[in-house]
């Protein structure tokens, strides 16, 4: 027979027993961190945005969680428009409370988004190319994976000048926007330092597809090297049309910035042969980090990773490494954790420079090979030089606040 004390104890314990499953559930449940990816899935750069988006999404999927928080990828399609990107980021940050933002399809979008994310005290990891991103427009919230225009130019133009010391006359064809201008001004600096004669430049608009007129103008100057300062499909068109006009016969052609494998495939081996390209990533460079990227890309596509996928992957990875090291999703803690962080990235051991939030990594000068020399369908180029060419922090123009 139960005594009064036992009954009271039982009654008191009952709510605890009833509540136990809820406590157990809460203990097991992970909080969810929304990570917004800002990419252009339509418009001029949609071919670029689509690959980047895949890489970012797959990295989130591969890691699954960071510091015990489940990761959820939220795509913001900016349709190639910086204004649209800012509007979508504002909406995501104010209405959904998102603080972790990654990705951009071009530099103009990155520059607009990074101001917005900083103003709203979020964190933004991007893959822009323009120097300003980690230069005069840098801020405490923003980090960049690919090298800046300075590095791309110094890791391609310098080795090429060293390789062909007699090639003194250089002509440039430049896309007239932030990124193209940034590449061009860096080229001019190197030309000046190395005693190269810059025999001319043709700017073209972002809507151009016909370059024969510019190429004829370039040919009239009899350059030793034609350097293309742009990215995306326009670079391919300039290369293709320069080759068709016979420029390869007596002129070296350098695309200072390319997106690597996907662009080499789009050009085909017949157009890649003997053309020099700059690239941020090459699947043939075997490192622990590149193996991780290769694994998820193989699983998703059955093929090797291209630059776009690797780059999209890298920006997700940096954010996740930061959350893991900080063991928190708190933005100031992640920023602090990322500054000076060294990790195994897609190009090898990469480091984040605290002074300007630029990832220190290799940039490759590549040379297209003949069809007959290819070992497989992806073996379109050889790495000629791998260089970590970063400007000294005090020369980037970056003046960063001490805290967010």
């Amino acid at each position, binding site marked *: 027979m139960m005594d009064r004390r036992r009954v009271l104890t039982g009654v008191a314990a009952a709510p605890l027993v009833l509540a136990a499953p809820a406590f157990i559930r809460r203990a097991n449940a992970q909080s969810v961190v929304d990570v917004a990816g800002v990419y252009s899935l339509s418009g001029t750069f949609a071919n670029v945005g*689509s690959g980047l988006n895949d890489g970012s999404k797959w990295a989130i999927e591969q890691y699954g969680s960071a510091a015990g928080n489940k990761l959820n990828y939220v795509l913001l399609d900016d349709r190639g428009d910086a204004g649209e990107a800012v509007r979508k980021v504002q909406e995501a940050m104010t209405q959904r409370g998102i603080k972790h933002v990654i990705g951009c399809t071009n530099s103009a979008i990155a520059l607009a988004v990074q101001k917005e994310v900083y103003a709203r005290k979020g964190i933004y990891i991007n893959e822009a190319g323009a120097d300003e991103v980690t230069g005069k427009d840098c801020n405490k919230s923003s980090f960049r994976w690919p090298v800046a225009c300075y590095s791309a130019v110094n890791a391609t133009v310098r080795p090429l000048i060293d390789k062909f010391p007699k090639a003194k006359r250089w002509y440039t064809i430049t896309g007239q926007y932030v990124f193209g201008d940034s590449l061009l001004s860096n080229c001019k600096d190197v030309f000046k330092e190395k005693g190269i004669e810059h025999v001319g430049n043709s700017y073209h*608009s972002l*809507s151009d597809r016909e370059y024969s*007129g510019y190429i004829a*103008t370039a040919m009239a100057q009899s350059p030793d090297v034609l350097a293309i300062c742009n990215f995306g499909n326009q670079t391919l068109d300039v290369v293709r049309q320069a080759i*068709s*006009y*016979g420029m390869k016969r007596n002129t070296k052609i350098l695309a200072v910035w390319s997106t690597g494998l996907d662009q080499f495939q*789009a050009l085909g081996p017949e157009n890649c042969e003997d053309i020099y390209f700059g690239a941020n990533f090459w699947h043939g460079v075997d490192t622990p980090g590149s193996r991780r990227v290769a694994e998820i890309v193989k699983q998703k596509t059955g093929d090797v990773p291209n630059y776009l996928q690797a780059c999209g992957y890298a920006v997700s990875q940096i954010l996740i490494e930061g959350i893991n090291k900080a063991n928190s999703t708190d933005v100031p803690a992640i920023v602090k954790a990322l500054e000076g962080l060294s990790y195994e990235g897609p190009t090898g051991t990469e480091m984040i420079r605290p002074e300007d939030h630029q990832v220190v990594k290799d940039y490759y000068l590549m040379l297209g090979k003949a069809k007959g020399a290819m070992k497989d369908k992806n073996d379109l180029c050889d790495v000629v030089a791998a260089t970590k060419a970063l400007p000294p922090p005090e020369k980037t123009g970056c003046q960063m606040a001490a805290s967010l």
Partner: protein
Amino acid sequence: MSAQLLLFQVLNGVGIGMIYFLLSVGLTLIFGLMRFVNFAHGAFYLVAAYIAYAVVIWTGSFWWALLLGPAIVAVLALVIERLLLRHTYSLPHEAQILITFAVALFLQEMVILIFTPLGHNVPVPPALSGVLFLGPYVYPAYRLAVVGVAALVAIMLWIAIERTKMGSILRAGSESAEMVGLLGINVDRVFMATFALGAALAGLAGVLVAPLRGVEPFMSAEALGIAFVVVVVGGLGTLSGALVGGILIGLVQSIMSTLWPEGAQLMIYASMALVILIRPTGLLGRI
């Protein structure tokens, strides 16, 4: 600019102009006869370019692509005209623009779905992969062949429109489709055939341009823009207008590439604005 470079840019501009003529002649034919504004014209160009890519991959032969590209696009246009566009002829131009724009977006998305958003290369046929020397300059043999095909198309179209019974029906139809119908001619069929021919010409342009620029899913927008500029400059609905408009725009683009490179694309549209100001119906358009 040296006289030699100017001469080369003029020749190059004529070459670009002939390519632009090919791009726009189908659009002007369709508008001339049917008074139908076809925003899907660029999409037919796109689809044919991708057919060229696929055929070259499968067969290794560009010549099969040249045959199949325009033919398949013509059949596609026939189906679209019969199922959809036929019901829109009596609607205002705004409705036609919206509907054909939707068709263009649909075709573009289909291309992305099948071929991915990344660009691809269509190799120049080996027989035409060389260059011709013009003093210090060279001109690609393939480009010259494209110019030749465009000239041939211009001559054949002129003969077909000016010297054949079908041509006289087309010309009569462009004046008064109702009157042609009263004469016992099946105007619906004439419209259908014209639409297919216009699409096939866009397809021919797509196949021929593919080795020059490669293929990518957003190539249709630029082509459509250029085609409309050429048609507006030359005069809506006239074959000779498309030829003159194409060459004029090609010359402006080529010469400005040297004189003011950053403004070359802008000058194309400035030329159009100037022509509209001076002669609103276009250089050879009917008042």
